[in-house]
């Protein structure tokens, strides 16, 4: 089973229908007045975090104190971190600030992203006749394909994420003489926590913890404004830094025929068209679940479009060659095939699924079809599916319930009329 990163703070949830309506995979139900996330359907895309007015949804991350139990601490910041300060503040300065928070070393995920860009170019050249290929850098997208578009799994570029590659390089760089080495991802993302806890497509993650940008941003901004001396730490160029926003990854490629799409509902419509064979003119498809790309992640504080423009301004930054000893294409390939976990399927047994579908259609016909959400499911169809799967009872629909009560009342009135008259004392 999938262990999702997005969690509910029960005390804060008021049981409204905002999140169930906005979840792209219909993974949330309100039951007993509280939102309940169905793990197998959750993408960790963070939509419910954004839409919850009670702030009752969070993405799990680690507190910075997690680093305490390590001898040598390495921070690997996501490119989107550079969106927290105006572009005249150098990436060197932001990284220096990060070091001052208690890290012994920093290694930019942006550098690893540059390596992935190079490898992606090679991959596209090698597979010239196939495609279009889908980027694997957004974990919510990879999971979306797994659960909803399993027929597209073979079109995902089978590479580990820049985070994972950065962790491997950083660990190697630390050597064996530093004691217990801890690698911590400085993250904008709701899905990374799950990616390191249950990687499906490689053995074990080299990341020891995920620290949310939101949890360190204020401290970091204070350090940036302080009189600390800037160290030369940045190696990534604007190409790698650009990955922090939508279009960065696609634009870094040498290939023609690239397309970038952000926002989970836009992605779903694109993948539907791709699955239906309507889109084949592209070579590479960059998909980012969050608005604006990683800068719009739920663990960021800066307005995504402000951060996006800052990252854009950093495009001209020059970097140094990081790819000297960073291995071959095979080093970043997934070692295992990505499994399909189609949640749409009603049952593994086809005949049973048929029977369930037949029942589902009958139930759906008896429902009002207005998707009001009062039953706790996002739509009448989802509710009918819940009943068929044994997760709900039909009387949770207030319209059905009202009809039943009316019928019952009618019957009672009729019953009253046929009472033996001699028991009626008044007349």
């Amino acid at each position, binding site marked *: 089973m999938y262990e999702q990163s997005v969690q509910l703070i029960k005390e804060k949830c008021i049981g409204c229908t905002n999140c169930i309506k906005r979840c792209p995979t219909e993974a949330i139900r309100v039951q007993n007045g509280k939102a309940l996330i169905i793990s197998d359907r959750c993408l960790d895309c963070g939509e419910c975090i954004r839409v919850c007015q009670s702030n009752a949804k969070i993405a799990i991350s680690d507190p910075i104190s997690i680093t305490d139990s390590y001898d040598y601490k390495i921070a690997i910041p996501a490119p989107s971190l550079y969106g927290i300060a105006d572009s005249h503040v150098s990436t060197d300065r932001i990284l220096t600030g990060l070091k001052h928070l208690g890290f012994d070393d920093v290694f930019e995920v942006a550098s690893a992203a540059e390596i992935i860009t190079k490898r992606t170019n090679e991959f596209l050249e090698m597979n010239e006749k196939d495609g279009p290929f889908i980027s694997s850098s957004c974990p919510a997208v990879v999971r979306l394909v797994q659960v909803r*578009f*399993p*027929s*597209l799994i073979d079109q995902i570029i089978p590479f580990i994420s820049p985070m994972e590659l950065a962790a491997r390089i950083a660990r190697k760089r630390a050597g064996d003489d530093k004691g217990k080495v801890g690698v911590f991802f400085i993250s904008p993302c709701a899905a990374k926590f799950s990616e390191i806890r249950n990687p499906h497509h490689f053995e074990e993650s080299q990341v020891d913890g995920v620290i949310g940008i939101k949890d360190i941003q204020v401290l970091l901004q204070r350090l940036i404004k302080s009189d600390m001396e800037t160290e030369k730490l940045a190696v990534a160029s604007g190409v790698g830094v650009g990955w922090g926003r939508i279009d960065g990854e696609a634009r870094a490629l040498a290939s023609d025929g690239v397309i970038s799409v952000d926002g989970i509902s836009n992605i779903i419509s694109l993948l539907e068209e791709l*699955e*239906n*064979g309507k889109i084949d003119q592209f070579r590479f498809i960059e998909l980012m679940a969050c608005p604006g790309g990683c800068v719009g992640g739920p663990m960021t504080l800066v307005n995504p479009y402000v951060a996006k423009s800052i990252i854009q301004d950093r495009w001209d930054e020059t970097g140094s060659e990081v790819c000297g000893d960073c291995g071959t294409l095979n080093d970043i390939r997934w070692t295992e095939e990505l499994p399909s976990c*189609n949640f*749409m*399927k*009603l*049952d*593994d047994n*086809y*005949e049973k*699924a*048929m029977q369930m*579908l037949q029942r*589902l259609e009958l139930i759906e016909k008896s429902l009002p079809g207005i998707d009001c959400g009062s039953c706790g499911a996002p739509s009448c169809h989802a509710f009918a*599916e819940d009943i068929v799967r044994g997760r709900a009872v039909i009387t949770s629909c207030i319209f059905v319930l009202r009809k039943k009560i009316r019928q019952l009342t009618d019957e009672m009135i009729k019953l009253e009329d046929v009472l033996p008259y001699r028991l009626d004392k008044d007349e």
Partner: protein
Amino acid sequence: MNQLGLHALIVRKTAIVMYEAEINMVIHAGGGVVDVYINPEDIRIILKDNGPGIPDIGKAMEAGFSTASDKARELGFGAGMGLPNIQKNSDDLNIESRVGEGTTVTILVKLN
């Protein structure tokens, strides 16, 4: 069909043949009755109409051949690709037709 766990390709093929056959029936026969059987091994679509019938089935199967009315063409239909498209996207296509009586089209899409 997605909820039955069928592969996206099967869903797509079925949607195409269903659409083309339906349009054909509406354009040439003014409507009819469709029965769809979803079986464990295949999907069988049977379209029955009481329309004018097809005088030369071989000719009707040719790509580009069409007897659609100008009105249908104005709407963008009747390019003569319906039957070839059905053949391309199905595993079996059988047409029985009597001029003046009607046509029965049986289409089979295999699931494996």
